[in-house]
């Protein structure tokens, strides 16, 4: 059918649009010539240079460490907060949820600037810690918003039932509630991790001279002229993420799309 053809064609075009630039980056990572437009022959040189480049490697490590720690802390703070908020009356709940939404609604430039202002006001030297604290701050809302729906889906009586059967509060939490909301907690964690990895603006405003994340390092390179090692790095990142996502998809829970009844 013509309709089917157009549909497939449309999808293909969009996918082409989305992936063309990435394909170009990958191709350029093997380009022997530093120039962007001329092909100078196939080489693996840039990959070698990449691993020897101290600056980029340390930026990569910093990025990963910050992402990991900030999402862990955010997950803990966010999950506990979500549980607490969910048990509140309507008014305090609405207030807290509104404030939770602020970092997400606000432009990240405003969030970044406001965080910088407070660090400076407290005479807190900008560096690794200031970036870490900022990342935790913008990660928590994502965790809360991932966990809340799961909390809402829980049966109200499970907790009580567990305790009726003799469980202590803590035991009931870890054995009964946590497993049920775990998908939400996990997706909150991954969401926070992703947001932290990709962040540029907030890190840009809250970092000190010693710290560079991948994004800020790339930004400084843009102004000077891109080193081909960056292309090698981007290719490796793409392949890593592709493999990860395929793995997760294979193992992953089937998303039950809850049917929306009107």
């Amino acid at each position: 059918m013509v309709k089917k053809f157009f549909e497939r064609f449309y999808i293909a075009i969009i996918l082409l649009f989305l992936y063309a630039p990435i394909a170009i980056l990958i191709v350029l990572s093997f380009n022997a010539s530093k120039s962007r437009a001329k092909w100078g022959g196939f080489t693996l040189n840039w990959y070698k240079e990449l691993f020897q480049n101290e600056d980029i490697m340390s930026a990569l490590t910093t990025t990963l460490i910050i992402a990991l720690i900030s999402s862990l802390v955010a997950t803990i703070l966010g999950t506990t907060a979500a549980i607490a908020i969910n048990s509140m009356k309507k008014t305090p709940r609405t207030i807290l949820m509104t404030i939770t939404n602020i970092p997400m609604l606000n432009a990240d430039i405003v969030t970044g600037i406001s965080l910088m202002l407070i660090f400076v006001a407290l005479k807190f030297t900008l560096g690794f810690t200031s970036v870490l604290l900022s990342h935790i701050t913008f990660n928590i809302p994502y965790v809360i918003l991932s966990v809340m729906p799961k909390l809402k889906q829980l049966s109200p009586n499970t907790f009580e039932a567990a305790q009726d059967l003799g469980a202590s509060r803590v035991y009931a939490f870890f054995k009964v509630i946590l497993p049920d909301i775990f998908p939400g907690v996990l997706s909150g964690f991954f969401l926070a991790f992703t947001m932290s990895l990709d962040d540029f603006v907030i890190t840009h405003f809250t970092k000190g001279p010693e710290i560079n994340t991948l994004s800020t390092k790339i930004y400084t390179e843009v102004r000077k002229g891109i080193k081909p090692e960056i292309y090698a790095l981007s290719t490796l990142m793409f392949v890593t993420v592709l493999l990860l996502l395929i793995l997760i998809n294979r193992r992953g829970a089937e998303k039950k799309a809850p049917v929306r009844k009107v």
Partner: protein
Amino acid sequence: MKVLNKSTKQIENSSGHGLHVPRVYNVKWLSFPYIIWMAGFIIVPLILIIFYGLTNKEEGFSLENISLIADPVNRKALFLSLKLSLTSTAICLLLAYPLAIILTNIKMKSNSFIVLILILPMWMNFLLRTIAWQNILEKTGIINNMLAFLHLPALNIINTPTAIILGMVYNFLPFMILPIYNVLIKIDKDVINAARDLGASWRQTFIKIILPLSLPGVVSGITMVFVPSLTTFVISTILGGSKIVLIGNVIEQQFRLGNWHTGSGISLVLMVFILLSMAILSKSDKESEGSNLW
């Protein structure tokens, strides 16, 4: 074994849904770490911006920073930003909606595969993706090289507003596709079938049933595209050659040059503007409470 009989107290469930931790056990304290964090890192910083925005260098209260938004330079930047971000949002919507519909009709083994394919570019570093476009659009870039090969005149897109729009659409399109797609697949096929059975044409079904039901997703998508594109300074720096000055660039420049008061003033105006538009938008979507992320 201890038998806890406090739990059998009947307590009115005022929240109406979800995990009901009997208030006797008072888990509100669990939120204290978060509240302290929030106060310190969200509320106080915002107050600081308000403070800087409403004072001038001599420590006096002043509206001059706010009025700076009316300054011709800033006004131009603001209007340009609005123009570009609205255009990009509209383009994203026009491109994303049909795609979402097509995707919901595809029978695939698991629809998370689709989500995966669409998310994947998002996982590439935002700057790298934008830089890739610089490569494509440059005077000596890919497109112009191909055109030169075909003896066609060169396209001068780089460093113009068009390049910026391209960059915005490219970066934010997945954010528009996903929410709409997520809402569309949750629509019960039975509802659509019922409508058809009752004699509605495809067009009527679409306008009366699908469109209204998809609105929360649309609103979500618009939010996730409009705000970042309005306030970006990275895209305009990389693809604009410092010739295109958006409101994000103005704010970033003010802070880089140390003019915290003027920078905060402009940020304040921008913040209020965004919050107002979001409030208006969310009127049409009361249920979500912001949980329409995925």
